[in-house]
């Protein structure tokens, strides 16, 4: 077990060096959320009407946070696929290292990546008027849970990367799945106002629950309050499923399940995979 952590750190360092040598990835990963904050904030914000554009920007920040960290996990998947394509994985697999260390190191390096992205996004958000209105402790809980969720999800993507072995396919497939998954959720448009089946999907979508956790802990839950509704009415309408009523618990369940299923699956796939 000690080699799991020590070897994992060695691999994490290797992946961070790579980010340093090929900064395009990181630049793209940080520019994209800035672009999203500005684009969504001002384009969708205009729909909310003059008085509420600022409120909308505050509302959607949690959604952009969730979408960005989820997309961040594709870096893990694409990186794993790239490793599988290149010969270096054969070197690792003949070394006396823990079989989970390559995956652990990669997911760990991507937490560092996500941390940086969260900082850049927060600064951009603050610049367009977003505020943390529920204290530092709650904000830290929100950030912590988002990082955990992203970490667990990166094991899912690692598994996909191991199976698919082509970074481009991982990126395209991820886009096809993650894009709808992060839109049919309580992210950019309030889930409660989605039509029919989309509303049901959003109600049980873990992207909604992680977004809601963040939104509540940032104190942004009432940023977009339709005229004539009380806070109580708005909260009740927002939390229209069990998952949303117990957003922290529901999110934690997803985190635990993703880790419990995909950590062993990925390690097994890694141990069995043969390089080229």
């Amino acid at each position, binding site marked *: 077990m000690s*080699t799991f952590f*020590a*070897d994992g750190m*060695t691999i994490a*360092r*290797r992946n961070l*060096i*790579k980010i340093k*040598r*090929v900064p395009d990835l990181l630049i793209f990963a940080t520019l994209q959320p800035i672009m999203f904050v500005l684009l969504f904030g001002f384009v969708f914000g205009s729909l909310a009407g003059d008085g509420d554009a600022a409120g909308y920007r505050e509302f959607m920040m949690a959604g952009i946070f969730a979408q960005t960290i989820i997309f961040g996990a594709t870096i893990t998947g694409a990186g794993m696929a790239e490793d599988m394509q*290149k*010969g*270096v*994985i*054969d*070197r*690792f*697999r*003949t*070394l*006396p*290292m823990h079989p989970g*260390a390559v995956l652990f190191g990669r997911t760990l390096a991507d937490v560092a990546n996500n941390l940086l992205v969260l900082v850049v996004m927060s600064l951009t958000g603050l610049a367009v008027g977003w505020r943390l209105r529920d204290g530092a402790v709650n904000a830290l809980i929100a950030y912590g849970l988002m990082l955990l969720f992203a970490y667990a999800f990166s094991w899912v993507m690692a598994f996909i990367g191991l199976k698919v072995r082509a970074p481009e396919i991982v990126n395209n497939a991820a886009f096809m799945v993650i894009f709808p998954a992060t839109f049919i959720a309580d992210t950019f448009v309030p889930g409660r106002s989605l039509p029919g089946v989309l509303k049901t999907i959003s109600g049980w979508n873990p992207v909604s629950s992680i977004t809601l956790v963040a939104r509540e802990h940032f104190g942004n839950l009432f940023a977009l309050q339709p005229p004539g509704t009380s806070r109580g009415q708005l909260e009740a309408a927002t939390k229209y499923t069990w998952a949303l009523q117990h957003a922290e618990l529901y999110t934690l369940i997803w985190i635990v399940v993703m880790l419990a299923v995909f950590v062993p699956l990925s390690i097994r796939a890694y141990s069995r995979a*043969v*390089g*080229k």
Partner: protein
Amino acid sequence: MSPQPAVIADGLVKHYKTVKAIDGVSLEVPEGTVLGVLGPNGAGKTTTVRVLTTLIRPDAGHAFVAGADVIKQPQEVRRRIGVSGQYAAVDEYLTGYENLEMVGRLYHLPRREAKARARELLRQFRLEDAADRPAKGYSGGMRRRLDLAGALVARPPVIFLDEPTTGLDPRSRGDMWEVIADLVSGGTSVLLTTQYLEEADRLADDIVVVDHGTVIAHGTADQLKDEVGGERLEVTVADGARLDDARRLLERVGHGDADITEHTRRVSVAVRAGTRSLIEGVRLLDEAGVEVKDIGIRRPTLDDAFLALTGHRAEDDEQEAAS
């Protein structure tokens, strides 16, 4: 009691759907010796190495490396081996130094030792100047050297080299041979695969020839060469009337009778001293005033070995396999 062999493979089988990649490979590498595994493309060399280095599990058979069971104790095996695969397993984004230091850390060397060992190997492999550049910019030969250095980081007692010079230009190949020869003189047990008879001849104590996933011959380089016919000195004379003189002179340089092919005006004889025989031949012919159109040492190729050992040519097999 004789010491246990460094590598024992017994009846290894690995099939992929319809392809029998290896079909009962057995071999041994006595401790402190070099075994050359010689075979054409597709013979099953890489598959054998992959099984012995714990990368794939065989469908049948047993193997022990440095006393550990490849199937039951893969982690033990990994502690005792160094591997340099057919495709250089270096991390392109890391520098040469970072690559070796990382490998040292993953062998669980203490940090300081990993760093010192990395520098030492870079010096030894003449990669000092490129040590702090990302491996992405390395030439093919440099990558192979870095990869080989990676195999040596932990000074493992058993080393596997899968086609270490395939695809290299002659100069890099010569460099590589020197490095491997050094290694061997240090007493490490080595299993080396190659498509080149010359390479096996230079580096290996013992040779097994593989074809279609099985071992078809086993012996020392000299034994196999005798079977194949060894090196020959070949001369084409300008004047057909001097063929007989040429034969007489060449028989003084070589062993046994010289062959004459009248219509090509060519004489050839088996020799054992390579370039020295060539020089000697040139001198004798020149002194006797025999004008030479062409002269050279012809070394037996893998094709010759196959022809001698199996009665068919390696290339025909490949075409068969491809069709």
